[in-house]
């Protein structure tokens, strides 16, 4: 088992004829994902290799069962793409695009919520259930099927953590990049709930960073509701306040979003926080043995 996506998941790619969309549609297919269709306005009837292209999400869904869509369109058009997917009722919408205006995201968030759908991202690497399905841009080969769930606000830092888990023989059930923006479709708690309910997930890694208070909320949730062991890592411990560290959401402002507050919240919830990514497998193994 895994969360959100598995070997049966049928995937649509919005922006499939663009540079990034085409590259990753091919990479996902090569990694075993069922990419059943793509969308680029005005390009109906074309094909990317064997994948049929449609002008709208609705047209694609008239021909295919679509379980999830992944958005690779530029920031200027990505809100429209999210809404189009929501209007068509795609249950899982993943927005990879970086640079979506935050006020637009607030609107997109309620738009998707009102329709009872799920949005992941924006500004995220996507998600992968190793050996089953990959929807996103991560290198599949560093992953390995197994029982660890990974939730992260980052991209390459997640690869670093996954790589260390795989090297230590700890495979992953699903790894989800929730995105580095201030307002995102799904947060740590949304994913923790799913991992807690997934019978094949044995433990979870939470990779947070400075900015906002999602980690603190996650810590409270873990203390109250998680029976499975959770280990954490927080990046940005050396970041100066008021400076945006790459991610739009990675900024300490108004005295909020410091790494100290996050580490403290996790410690108080009994969640060990690694100082380096290569300490995570050890921390998890220790907790898994104790259970």
């Amino acid at each position, binding site marked *: 088992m895994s969360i959100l996506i598995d070997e049966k998941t049928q995937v649509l790619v919005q922006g499939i004829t663009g540079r990034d969309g085409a590259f990753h549609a091919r990479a996902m297919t090569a990694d075993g994902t069922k990419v059943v269709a793509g969308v680029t306005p005005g390009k109906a009837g074309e094909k990317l290799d064997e994948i049929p292209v449609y002008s709208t999400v609705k047209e694609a869904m008239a021909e295919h069962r679509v379980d999830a869509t992944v958005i690779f369109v530029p920031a200027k058009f990505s809100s429209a793409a999210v809404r189009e997917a929501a209007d068509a009722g795609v249950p899982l919408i993943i927005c990879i695009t970086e640079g979506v205006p935050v006020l*637009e995201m607030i609107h997109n*968030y*309620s738009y998707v919520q009102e329709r009872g759908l799920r949005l992941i991202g924006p500004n995220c690497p996507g998600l992968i259930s190793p050996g089953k399905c990959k929807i996103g841009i991560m290198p599949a080969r560093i992953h390995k099927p197994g029982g660890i769930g990974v939730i992260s606000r980052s*991209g390459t830092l997640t690869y670093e953590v996954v790589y260390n888990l795989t090297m230590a023989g700890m495979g992953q059930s699903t790894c989800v990049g929730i995105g580095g923006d*201030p*307002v995102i479709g799904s947060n740590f708690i949304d994913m923790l709930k799913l991992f807690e309910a997934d019978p094949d997930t044995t433990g979870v890694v939470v990779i947070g960073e400075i900015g906002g208070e999602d980690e603190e909320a996650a810590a409270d949730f873990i203390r109250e509701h998680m029976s499975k062991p959770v280990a954490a890592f927080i990046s940005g411990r050396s970041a100066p306040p008021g400076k945006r*560290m790459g991610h739009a959401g990675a900024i300490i402002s108004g005295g909020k979003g410091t790494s100290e507050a996050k580490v403290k919240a996790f410690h108080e919830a009994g969640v060990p926080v690694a100082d380096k990514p290569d300490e995570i497998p050890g921390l998890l193994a220790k907790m898994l043995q104790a259970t």
Partner: protein
Amino acid sequence: MKVHEYQGKQLFGEYGVPVPVEMVVTTAEQAAEAAAKIGGTVVIKAQVLVGGRGKAGGVKIAKSPDEARERAAEILALTIKELPVEKVLVAPAADIKQEFYLGLVLDRNTKSVLLMVSKAGGVDIEELAVSSPDEILKLPIDPVKGIQDAELKQTLSKVFETPKLLEQAQDTVTKLYRLFVEKDCSLVEINPYGLVEDEVLLALDAKVNFDDNALFKHPDIEALKNLEEYSADEIEANKHGLSFVSLDGDIGCIVNGAGLAMATLDIIKLYGGSPANFLDVGGSSNPEKVLNALSIILGNPNCKAVLINIFGGITRCDDIAKGILMAMDQIDIKLPLVIRLIGTNDKEGRKLLTDRGLEVAESLSEAVEKVVSVA
């Protein structure tokens, strides 16, 4: 993106929010002329993009044009939190009877625009939020529905007790919200929102920040950008599409991905070192970017060693290696380079580098330990 107080007040003016009649000047002589035009006692305020200017001596009262000249000269000679003061605002010294606080902020938790109001204006609002959080009233504004007048009135009436004040505050908040939404702000703040003669409320300060992601929609706002907010290296890096933040240490860093870049800095500190910068080369596989990144970092006189940490996903390690070799051919690199390459095409990348006599680490801890020992 941040703008100066005077720029914020100009925006307030455009949206009909009452602001004092005031002038922004760049020399002491101009300050004296402005004081003469305004008449009476004036206040002279440094225009810098950081808080705490009052404590740093950046706000002074002058009773005559001559005094304004002297005070302005003093302020223009200041450097506040490393930012030299280049402009001052000359404003009438209002007889302030009471100071309120009004703020709109993009709130990540409630996914709304959060209105904050307080009777205790004029003080550091961040400190107030910690010391007496009950003094700040909050009202989340639903982004889809917009301001609900009855709700807004109810919240504001707890702070503004006479009908006349309440009416002005409600009008101001409505206008500020329009500014916030139309210009994609992340923060709009009036502190103090001052009660001056005849029950009149005025915006006596202005703090306006914008969402960087939305600047592409607002060329008028982008034109307000103040380059002094950024270091020379940050501006140069920005031109080349690199995400860069100057820091005060001596280990230059080139990393792909913001999260990994932050973590790399943290681990350098953990091993007793001190990073000179944050740099995310981004996800593309462009050797030019590595060359640009290296030349910016090597131009920093404080830098004693460089760590390149790449976890290839979309980024290909062989492209990074090509960029490093390109830099070695074009720049005389005298500082030790510590390189860690892993992920997509790492074998090819490592071979390119080891063929040229460079050492390449596989583990991040090992690479950091090494760069700290040579810096």
